[in-house]
């Protein structure tokens, strides 16, 4: 069963949208990183659960939007 071209480039939005998406994701990651630092430095005991709550979605955002995970099964982001 041959794949249609649009399935291969399923993650491909318009160039402007793709650029905007990259900037939004980057901004979100920066915000998470700074929040992590504040939590890690200020909340010395018990920071672990809060850090996990920030780190896991942060890593997920990269995997989903930058690494185009949905494209593995031909889906949209």
């Amino acid at each position, binding site marked *: 069963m*041959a*794949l249609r*071209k649009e399935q291969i*480039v399923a993650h491909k939005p318009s160039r402007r949208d793709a650029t905007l998406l990259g900037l939004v994701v980057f901004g979100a990651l920066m915000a998470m990183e700074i929040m992590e630092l504040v939590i890690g*430095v200020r909340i010395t005991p018990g920071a672990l659960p809060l850090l996990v709550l920030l780190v896991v979605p942060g890593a997920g955002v990269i995997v989903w939007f*930058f690494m185009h995970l949905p494209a593995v099964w031909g889906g949209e982001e």
Partner: protein
Amino acid sequence: MTTEHAVEHGIHSPEMRVKINRIGLWLFILSDAFFFVALISSRFYLHGTYRPDDLNQALGLGVSIVLLLSSLTVYRAEVAASYGDRAATQRNILFTIGLGLLFAVGVGYEWYEAFSHFPPSTGFGTIFFTLTGVHATHVFSGLIVLGFLWWLNRRGKYSSEETYWPVEGAAKYWHFVDVAWVLIYPTLYLVS
């Protein structure tokens, strides 16, 4: 299944090759991720949430921002390549290499400081140097791949949206290096 049958059903078609490449790369990334997960687990197993006071927090955040920025530039390189914009691809790959090198310099400086505060012979030092060292090897291999990609792209190898898979693959790998750091940074610098 005969070759003719396979070709007829699109298994050897360029589209299917890209699909197979993607799955192959994801499997590689997944196996590599297990390695990082094991190393991160060892930090908690051996030292719980202990964190030395001598960690350079500003540097830790700085190198993290540099690596996140490199993820954005490599993403832009991929987008440019997918639209056949060779010049922008070239430029963004170069930015990524520059940021990757800057990250390596930052980690190098952190190592220089760490040797006097918690050398590899100490418990935390072992974890710190192993995690950052393994990650740095990934950064260097990514830089080699990106350098090679830059050189090939300069020769017009990935000038159309049909031939940009290598850019996509290298970008994926670089993002994985970033994801690994997103997990390593709080593990080493912030958990306490």
